[in-house]
């Protein structure tokens, strides 16, 4: 999957143009997703909600401010966090198939949540114990993985990937044990949690996730050039001045923060972490100062659109958003891969 550049001196400015295009598209997608939903609002009323709220029925105001807007924003933040984590992990492992799940954080978070459901604790702490358990589970997994973040004389990254595979398998077994022993009620809750959903969005969760996105994003951004240098190989990057072990640690911490927080509030959502960074690379090239913001915008838009489908296609019922991420993102991704010469390898 090589995004190669035409021998064209304008290619980099073209990439910048594309990034600006994505940035311009993003508010439009947010606006459209805010206007559409089971309760009809429409663009005109969207304006009135801000400018002349007295003209809008109270129930519509409540739906917009308490339900729809936090949900659209949560979807954007979750999508952005997953895509950002994916971009970081793929850059670190120089592996197009690397997924944030590879570092064990998704499986750890799922285990934390499943344990919570198993003991019927999901409602405790005003409903905050569940995201907390998921987040802590994700972190414990990453801390275990951190033991294997040693130097590179012994094939550091390869060892890290293998440790991640083993860790995922072990967490999968633990997960299976809880799923198997769970009561029917708990099992159903677990199943729906693992399908992923943005339906539980409230303002405090949006605020918390924004904070995590800011921290994780900053950690990745300050390592953007190091990630570029890592594309030459870890040893060569070290010769260029990259502190490989520190960069590895920071990328993994950032990915764990991002995926842990996103998973805590929205359950496990696949596809975006794997594919949004690739879309960014296909559109913008490989430099991480372009890939990272591109992945943020693409991931956010993908999940906002998928969630829009989840809450409108079967309205008044809900669809699982995990089904729709691939349905919406897949064709676009395949089209990018198929595009003629200028971007193909």
């Amino acid at each position, binding site marked *: 999957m090589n995004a190669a550049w035409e021998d064209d001196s304008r290619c980099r400015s073209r990439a910048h143009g594309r990034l600006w295009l994505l940035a311009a598209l993003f508010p439009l997608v947010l606006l459209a997703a805010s206007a559409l939903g089971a309760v009809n609002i429409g663009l005109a009323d969207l304006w009135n909600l801000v400018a002349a709220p007295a003209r809008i029925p109270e129930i519509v105001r409540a*739906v917009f401010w308490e339900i729809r807007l936090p949900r659209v924003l949560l979807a954007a933040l979750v999508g952005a966090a997953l895509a950002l984590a994916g971009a970081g992990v793929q850059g670190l492992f120089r592996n197009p198939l690397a997924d944030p799940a590879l570092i064990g954080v998704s499986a750890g978070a799922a285990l934390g949540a499943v344990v919570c459901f198993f003991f019927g604790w999901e409602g405790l702490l005003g409903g905050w114990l569940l995201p907390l358990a998921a987040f802590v589970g994700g972190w414990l997994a990453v801390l275990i993985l951190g033991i294997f973040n040693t130097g590179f004389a012994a094939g550091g990254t390869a060892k890290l990937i293998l440790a991640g595979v083993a860790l995922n398998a072990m967490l999968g077994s633990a997960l299976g044990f809880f799923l198997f022993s769970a*009561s029917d009620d708990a099992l159903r809750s677990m199943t729906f949690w693992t399908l992923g959903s943005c339906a539980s969005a409230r303002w405090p969760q949006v605020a918390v996730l924004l904070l995590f996105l800011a921290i994780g994003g900053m950690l990745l951004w300050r390592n953007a050039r190091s990630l570029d240098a890592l594309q030459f190989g870890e040893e060569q990057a070290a010769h260029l001045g990259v502190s490989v072990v520190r960069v590895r640690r920071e990328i993994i911490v950032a990915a764990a923060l991002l995926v842990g927080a996103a998973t805590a509030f929205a359950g496990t959502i696949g596809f975006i972490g794997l594919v949004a960074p690739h879309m960014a690379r296909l559109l913008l090239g490989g430099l991480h100062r372009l890939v990272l913001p591109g992945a943020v915008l693409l991931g956010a838009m993908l999940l906002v659109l998928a969630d829009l489908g989840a809450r409108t296609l*079967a309205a008044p019922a809900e669809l699982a958003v995990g089904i729709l991420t691939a349905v919406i993102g897949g064709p676009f991704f395949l089209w990018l891969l198929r595009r003629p010469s200028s971007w193909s390898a």
Partner: protein
Amino acid sequence: MLRPATILAVLLTALTARAEPARIVTAGAAVTEIVSGLGLGPQIVAVDTSSKHLEETRDKPDVGYVRMLGAEGILSQKPDLVLVSGEAGPPPVLEQIKAAGVDVVVIPNGYSLDNIDDKIRAIAAATDRVEDGEKLITRVEADVQALRAATAANEGERPRVVFLLARHGGNLMAAGTETAAHAMIEASGGRNVCASFTGYQPLSAEIFAAATPDFVIVSQSVGGDDTELLARVPGLGTTPAGRQLRVIRVDDAAFLGFGPRTPSAATEVALALRQP
């Protein structure tokens, strides 16, 4: 019999209930059946997927699976009351609906026939239909008495029963303890041969053969005739139930729902268990 939680629910709903609600969204089969039984069927504007089995609700809008409700979808039906069973969720969605100014009443689940009266009382209070509620309770109590009469004959040597649940992929799983099916087997005068584990579990052929059930209860929604059904479960053919093709099919919404129709569904099973 009143439990503290129910008393609290009744008090809370009595405090918050407006006069009779005009637009109700229900989720959970038993809740919907009770609302319908109170004569409020026409006021129901939308139901969850599990409540579509009633004539009255078949054509109402579907707000989806009871554990995966969406706040906006429910609010788009402009309800003034949302009545849901205990498993409804996710919890934040119910909070969102309350935040939008709509009354949400959660009717706790309970896997015992006694709970049916509690549920009816809570719903009657929430909908300001206390009198209709007492009438419905009287009817249910009569059905419970009929059930007691039907099971009396089975006291002493209780028939050995296994309940099979169809899961996705066509896998059949047996009901252990802490399931609605276990409670209903016992209430119908049978003995659950799978009391050694909790929840629904797939059983191995050997354990099935050793459990020697006399009867198999399955949902009527499971396809195929009795012979096909027995062939799908390894080991079942060698049991008394398998050899004599003793399969009882139930309407699981009624039999397992702990709603107003549950006692009479149990009576039917109890009568079937009396067959030699």
